[in-house]
């Protein structure tokens, strides 16, 4: 809180304003994106960049004390559990049968790729050692 920390003050304000901007951007994406699988990307922006920048700004503002230790613990915990929770939500949605929508002009190409992928394993029985190494 002393006047000698001018640069630290400026850095912390930049981090806090950037984190707030990322939070609002992620929330707007959560509103504006058309379907579930793209909304997960907006949530990941909010979970990683917004949280880390805001915690960094608060840590720079709080100085080197027990507050910083708590902020580091909170940041590590959110950094681990945020992607884990997002993965759990996506996995539960996938298991329940929700699939990403495919554009109608891409549907034929995706179907051909899937058919080629399912036809691939029985066709590769010619060379057992040299097949999957590529």
């Amino acid at each position, binding site marked *: 809180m002393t006047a000698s920390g001018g640069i630290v003050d400026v850095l912390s304000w930049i981090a806090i304003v950037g984190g707030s901007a990322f939070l609002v951007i992620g*929330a707007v994406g959560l509103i504006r994106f058309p379907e579930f699988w793209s909304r997960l990307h907006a949530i990941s922006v909010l979970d990683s960049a917004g949280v880390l920048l805001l915690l960094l700004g608060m840590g720079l503002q709080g100085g080197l004390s027990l507050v910083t230790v708590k902020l580091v613990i909170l940041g590590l915990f959110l950094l681990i559990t945020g992607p884990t929770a997002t993965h759990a939500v996506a996995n539960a949605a996938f298991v329940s049968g929700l699939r990403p929508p495919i554009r109608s002009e891409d549907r034929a190409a995706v179907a051909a790729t899937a058919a080629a992928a399912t036809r691939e394993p029985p066709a590769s029985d010619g060379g057992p050692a040299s097949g999957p190494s590529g």
Partner: protein
Amino acid sequence: MFVAAALAIGVAMVLTFIRLCTGPTLYDRVAAVNAFGTETVLLIGVIGFLTGRPDFLDIALLYALINFVGTIAVLKFFRYRALGDPVMTRTPDATPDARKNAVEAAAVAGAGSRPS
């Protein structure tokens, strides 16, 4: 400046709450609840700094723990329709069906990118 951060977090919470209320699918709502909890953790920390009492970070840490466990518990309940062990909590006559469902869910989860 912490006031601006708190206002931005408030705006983000309002937008997330709109998605939470209007989410078409169940998983939109679960993801929105998770994001709302993350924003609440940040808001508690910012309010702690705003009022000059950074001890609020303990509450924020506790809220982050509860948020994660709650999200995982809700997802587990929606997949297995039970919060305990998915096989043992069923009634005896429904046990084979529950075991079959659990095995199928595990197989689908392990298959990953298999085309439907």
